């Protein structure tokens, strides 16, 4: 595979893009999980799907190629994130209501655009589950720009975002502009979802943001360590998932997510076994 990596540009682009999203998806995902917004990522990925379907429809019906499905997916994702924020403000007592509303709107629009286009070919399939050969040089550069923006914002407002995630009331007393930061955060999430879709696909993108964190939380002490572990696990899953995807000729979204599930189940099992052994040792100490 190393030889192919050196030989084919598209494979190199895919791997570099994979490494980038293996870093930014769990980085942002750490905040998404502790803020209990995991489902929001799912809702946004479905809106992104609508954007992709819109872009494919535009391509098919008008021949316009300037707005690629990647760009339209990105645009829909960001607009969807702003709608989620608006709905959360309208329904302050039922903020989670914004998620099914936006999710169903995303699916509804996707169905509409697919119907209008009389179906799509394999293109849509690669957007749904990712592809080892779908990343262009331009896509790679856009993902790189998104990654730089995400890293600058997260590292600049890390402590504000952390406090806001842990104790919103205290953050407000400290004069932190909670609404502004939250809006920025949701837009960043939309950008990362759009950036990740070529590798893992829109249907599995939220898994790359949350599964590494689900594993990291079980291993780490503290939040910084959780982020570091999540990124390491994210990177490992992308690399292994892409290699498996390449050799088995399957979409990498599936192999990445299945690898993560396997790691999660193994760790839960190992911790359960360790706890049981510890309890039984304690019991025998008491008896002895």
């Amino acid at each position: 595979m190393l030889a192919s990596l050196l030989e084919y540009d598209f494979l190199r682009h895919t791997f570099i893009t994979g490494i980038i999203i293996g870093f930014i998806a769990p980085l942002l995902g750490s905040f998404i999980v502790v803020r209990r917004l995991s489902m929001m990522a799912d809702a946004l990925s479905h809106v992104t799907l609508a954007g992709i379907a819109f872009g494919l429809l535009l391509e098919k019906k008008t021949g316009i190629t300037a707005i690629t499905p990647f760009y339209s997916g990105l645009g829909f994702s960001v607009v969807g994130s702003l709608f989620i924020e608006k709905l959360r403000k309208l329904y302050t007592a039922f903020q989670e209501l914004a998620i099914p509303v936006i999710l169903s709107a995303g699916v509804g629009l996707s169905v509409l655009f697919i119907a209008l286009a009389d179906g799509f070919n394999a293109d849509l399939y690669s957007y749904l589950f990712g592809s080892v050969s779908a990343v262009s040089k331009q896509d790679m550069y856009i993902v790189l720009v998104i990654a730089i923006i995400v890293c600058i914002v997260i590292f600049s407002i890390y402590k504000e975002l952390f406090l806001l995630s842990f104790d919103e009331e205290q953050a407000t007393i400290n004069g932190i502009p909670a609404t502004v930061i939250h809006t920025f955060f949701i837009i960043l999430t939309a950008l990362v979802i759009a950036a990740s879709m070529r590798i893992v696909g829109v249907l599995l993108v939220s898994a790359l943001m949350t599964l590494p964190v689900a594993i990291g939380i079980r291993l780490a002490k503290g939040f910084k360590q959780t982020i570091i572990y999540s990124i390491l696990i994210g990177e490992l899953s992308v690399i292994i998932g892409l290699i498996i995807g390449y050799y088995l000729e399957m979409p990498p979204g599936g192999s990445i997510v299945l690898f993560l599930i396997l790691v999660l189940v193994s760790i839960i099992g190992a911790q359960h076994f360790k706890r049981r052994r510890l309890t039984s040792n304690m019991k025998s100490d008491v008896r002895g």
Partner: protein
Amino acid sequence: MSDKIIEIEDVSFQYDYDKTVLSHINFSMRAGDFVGLVGPNGGGKTTLLKLILGLNKANNGTIRIFNTPIQEFKDKNKIAYVSQKANAFNRGFPATVEEVVEMGLTASLGIFKRIKKQHKLAVYEALKKVDMTSYAKENIGNLSGGQQQRVFIARALVSEPELLILDEPTVGVDQQNVSNFFDLLSKLNQQHISLLIVSHDLQAIANHVTNVFFVNKTIQAIDSLEDYPLFTLGGE
């Protein structure tokens, strides 16, 4: 200049739905005081704290904090607050004790500034004040209620405030730890930190505070415990 750190004159407050919560409140507190606020549920104790913290705006009257009208008061580092909900956080949240205390530096550092070595020392000092240094690397969710409350006090102390405001800090803390907790607050008061505490436990705070006020829509100083039978008091 007056040494009053809080001055409230003729302040009233009502929510949008027209229920008057506080009426014509006059209250003041001097530097070095340890003041307790007691009163029944819904009597307006927490609302009064929120007015002092600037989270609610009074309908009329004036509030001065450190000799500055509250609208102009920007020096947020002078006041630290431990909320009633502080220990109602998500227990599974992956944050170490050290990370939680570092959060207390957010306002004083300002946006874009990062935690440096001297700030880590300040965190250690704050933990030392509450006897929690040995737990610095532990996840906060693994500690007992009393220990968590000490960590939140450390978070409040790390920015070296002059006034510490606590809202029902002993809820969920067992009796033995409540006593230790108030001893800790008295120790902090001796170190020249002014304290304003809301509590439903008049007996517990009576031995430690310098003044107690009874809040139930209005406010009045309590001179004698016998005038306020316990059944009229409660948490908010």
